[in-house]
């Protein structure tokens, strides 16, 4: 059964320079217990998509479409109902743990807050539980470190604290936005291992532009470009046989595969290209790619690609 079903999700930001089309008609589903990777280059709309699910975007953002979670459309819930979903059923681990933790509150109290709000526990047992959670994400001297402020934690520890905070309410879906960014290789490994372990029976939307990380812990991967999903596939299929030229280019730009960058730069989200949004940078582009917007094609079981090459 689908945990989360996003259909026709569109996010528009009115700005002085024009309408920023941050996501365009995104359709995406996450199954129960599944880890779905969302990859794409910087500015492709990954964070916006994650925040739109929890309705955390600024008030001036125009969000259209349907986000069905356990049967309910989150976008049409009243604010109080939405608040009971946030932090309880769906949690989000923000992109940068250094700015995502409040600098003037102790790490412990920031985790405690979640327990008190969603688990209705008293202060004392909440305190005990916080230490347990910190131990679970393998923070050494947890009983002492609860009283630390975020700046006393290293980058990896802050990320662990964010994960502990996310687990506090035992949610069913975790949206993790670049949880391994800026961490060195060994710490990154450990964080990935930890995430894999704790999401054993949970669903996760794993946002990253690091394909290797996504491949390690996700069963399926969706590729995003200029606010659009271009390809969705099982992880092995995507790595072995990428269907979309953008996915192929993305793979070839990895250090392990030759570090060949895709030519050109990403399009302006205000003035998107006609037809396929990737055609100006695509080596296989034909006349139809410039004229028509490719629909999402269903290839075999669960595999999708938005490209005329496979029509």
């Amino acid at each position: 059964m689908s945990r989360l079903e996003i259909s026709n999700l569109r996010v528009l930001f009115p700005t002085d320079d024009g309408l920023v089309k941050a996501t365009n008609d995104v359709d995406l589903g996450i199954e129960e217990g599944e880890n779905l990777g969302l990859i794409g280059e910087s500015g492709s709309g990954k964070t916006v998509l994650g925040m739109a699910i929890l309705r955390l975007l600024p008030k001036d953002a125009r969000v259209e479409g349907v986000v069905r979670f356990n049967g309910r459309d989150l976008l049409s819930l009243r604010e109080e109902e939405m608040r009971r979903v946030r932090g309880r059923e769906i949690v989000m681990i923000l992109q940068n743990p250094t700015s995502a933790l409040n600098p003037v509150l102790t790490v412990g109290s920031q985790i405690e807050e979640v327990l008190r709000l969603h688990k209705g526990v008293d202060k004392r047992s909440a305190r005990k539980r916080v230490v347990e959670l910190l131990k679970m994400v393998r923070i050494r001297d947890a009983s002492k470190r609860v009283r630390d402020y975020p700046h006393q934690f290293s980058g990896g520890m802050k990320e662990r604290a964010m994960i502990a905070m996310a687990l506090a309410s035992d949610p069913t879906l975790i949206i993790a936005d670049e949880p391994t960014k800026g961490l060195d290789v060994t710490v990154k490994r450990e964080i990935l291992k930890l995430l894999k372990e704790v999401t054993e029976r949970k669903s996760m939307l794993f946002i990253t532009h690091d394909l290797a990380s996504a491949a390690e812990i996700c069963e399926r991967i969706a590729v995003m470009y200029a606010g659009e999903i271009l390809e969705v596939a099982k992880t092995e299929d995507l790595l072995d046989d990428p269907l979309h030229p953008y996915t192929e280019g993305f793979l070839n730009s990895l250090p392990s595969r030759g570090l060949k960058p895709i030519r050109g730069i990403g399009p302006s989200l205000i003035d998107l290209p006609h037809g396929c949004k990737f055609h100006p940078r695509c080596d296989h582009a034909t006349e139809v790619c410039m004229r028509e917007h490719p629909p999402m094609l269903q290839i075999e079981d669960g595999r999708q690609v938005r490209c005329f090459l496979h029509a």
Partner: protein
Amino acid sequence: MLAYISKRILLIMPALLFVSIISFSMVYLAPGDPAEILLMSPEGSPSPEAIDAFRVRMGLDQPIYVQYLRWLDNVIHGDFGYSYMSERPVADAIMKSFKATLKLSFVSMIVSIVVSIPLGIMAAVKHNTIIDDLCRFGALIGVSIPNFWQAFLLILLFSVYLDWLPVAGYGDGGDLKHMILPAITLGTSSAAVTARLMRSSLLEALSQDYIITARAKGLPEKIVIGKHALKNALIPVVTILGLNLGFLLNGAVVTEWIFGWPGIGDLVVDSIYQRDYTVIQGSILFIAVIFVILNLIVDISYTYLNPRIRYEIVD
């Protein structure tokens, strides 16, 4: 922490020494011989003998550095000398005036905080709405009306026209009735700036990622703002409140003068008019000391509000 405080106090010492030299020598930079001016009477200039006798009595015949060192030594022992005019101890006059100023400052601060903090928060939470515009307008009026003018308007309305409050004076040892109008005058003028700072500082805090984290937890907006944002936003506000208190404690000269409030500002102005040099020297040094101490207190409270600084200090 203790090491930090002692280090700060040690650093203050040279500053105070410098201030003491300035306040002592200022008197000698003013034109005219103090002895001659002080002994001037309606009958005419004093005789040279009288001037000499006065100088010897006051120690003014000594070289200036001897006078300074002697004065400094006395000051350190709490003896600010005697007023040339009233011949009473300067320390007594300062203490009496300071008590009056302290009272007025305290009430003014309360007025200022009660007005500025809620207005600033409201303006930030409702930013770019009519409420924000009204707060901005109010603040603009607050900063642009000079204190003396506001004081006169208040006196006209509440004392002359409505006859609710006394025009001026200290009343029975500085009672609340006499304090209301000067406290409103002083409190509202600093409230304008504080409210603007509160607004911008809260808006800044509300744009931070940790606010999104707080919302993502499902916290109600009043906790997101009242706890997560406000705790950060208050840090700069406390600094400006401390500075405001410093200005109040050093005597809001014009306001104290208009309302006949016998505070430290009043004392300085009077002593300057009367060329009461020992009082000028003493009160200026006293004001400097108060300012320095207050700054230290602000810095220390700042470290309590801002853990990043607190731990830098400990390390």
